[in-house]
């Protein structure tokens, strides 16, 4: 049984890619940081919602997954880099032979997992190849 609160706490990040930006040095953070590691106390932190466009840095195709994801295999997992700089790990919705390093992607809203048949459904963001 997974934690209800742990998932809920991160909904702004999972649904809407809400991070932060240090307006002092211009660095972006995802997940959000309330303290800029470069500017430290001198950094002014603001909420920033990433539009989610970015590119694939590296990837793999998961064929053996943990229990929660068993039914989804094979699926593409990648490290995506937002245009603003931060990176995150995410599933790609595409064929395993479609993915390329450097491929442009955009975010979509999908069902990530569920806590069994009767538990909470975890929604979040995956990425699809962005033709344009």
């Amino acid at each position, binding site marked *: 049984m997974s934690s209800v609160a*742990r998932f809920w706490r*991160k909904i702004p990040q999972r649904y809407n890619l809400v991070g932060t930006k240090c307006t002092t040095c211009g660095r972006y953070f995802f*997940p959000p940081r309330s303290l800029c590691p470069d500017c430290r106390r001198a950094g002014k932190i603001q909420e920033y919602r990433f539009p989610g466009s970015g590119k694939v*840095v*590296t*990837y*793999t*195709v*998961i*064929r*053996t*997954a*943990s*229990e*929660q*994801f*068993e039914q*989804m295999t094979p*699926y593409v*997992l*990648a*490290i995506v880099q937002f245009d603003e700089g931060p*990176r*995150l*790990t*995410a*599933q790609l919705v595409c064929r*395993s032979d479609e993915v390329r*390093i450097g491929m442009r992607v955009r975010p979509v809203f999908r069902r*990530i*997992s569920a806590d069994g048949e009767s538990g909470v459904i*975890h929604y*979040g963001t*995956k990425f699809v190849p962005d033709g344009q």
Partner: protein
Amino acid sequence: MRDVAVIGIGCTPFGEKWGSSFRDLFVQAGTLALEDAGISGEEIGAMYVGNMSAGRFIEQEHIGALIADYSGLATGHIASTRVEAACASGGLSFRQAFIAVASGIEDIVVAAGVEKMTDVGAGASVDALAGAADREWEGFVGATFPGLYAMIATDYMNRYPLTREQLAQVAVKNHYNGARNPIAQFSQEITIETVLSSSLVADPLRLFDCSPITDGAAAVVLAPLEQAREYTDTPVRVLASAQASDTIALHDRRDISTLDATVAAGRRAFSMAGLSPRDIDLVEVHDCFTIAEICAIEDLGFCRKDEAGKLTWEGVTALDGDLPVNTSGGLKACGHPVGATGIKQVCEIVSQLRGEAGKRQVDGARVGMTHNVGGTGATVAVHVLGV
């Protein structure tokens, strides 16, 4: 600070040990180490036990106390501590023991590691191991441990000239060595074909690129060098102990194909020992996946960032090469009971430096190194031992 030596070692056979419980494994390794050191137990001042996830595998926490109890040392009320850093738990356990003795606070200290992984099903195992990575930002979205290392492999192979065959050779070499190690989980030699025809786990990594699920335990006994000769004729000195950390999530690393924590720990270790890579006669690196060995050899400074594949292919890291890597069989062939691996690595180096490594003995081995990694590189422990 005083010099520290290893005076005893012990390893259980590694593998799927259905008949052995977590407690059985530990006691077995501990007993072997104590016998090897020629001590009975009352001499022990403290114990450190590396264990990643007894809570997830056997629903047991409070491992320090459990181990002291089952070692028969609880009645002596020794200080017993569990150390956790995912797959680097063993390496950190060794470092903590080293610090206890080097500082003068303790004299005889046991550093051990144990993991009992087969009491749960494969799915639960994969999920427990994913705790070595970033649960919130990697595990939650469906990343698995092999998946993360596979992404390192994809990035590496996109930037450096590593072929799929060279990568497979890592596993072939380690199986060759493992076949000569009586405690190894796998005793069969394999070929490149075995690796390349095994099923894909997370592209491009196949089954034979991945270390297995293993039960096992290992233990070593440490003493101040000045007292070591009271216990053994073959004390092995700890020349350096180093530890480093890095971001837990792979996506937050400076460079996906370089484990900066390995680079940092390696440099610290060489500096402490006053040595450089060419002084090392053999090294046990953390080959949880074949790509990890490639990166380790480079990141420790044994060669340039794009050379490890070629060196492996050319046999430089083979048992009879210039720099034997993973004479124990590595994690791949010897097995990887997570918390025990870091201690097993020490046992292997000590064996080799004592000239007791039998069919896999490296001639003239005088200085050895161990490299133990937690997660995808968030913790690294490096030790140098010598005679």
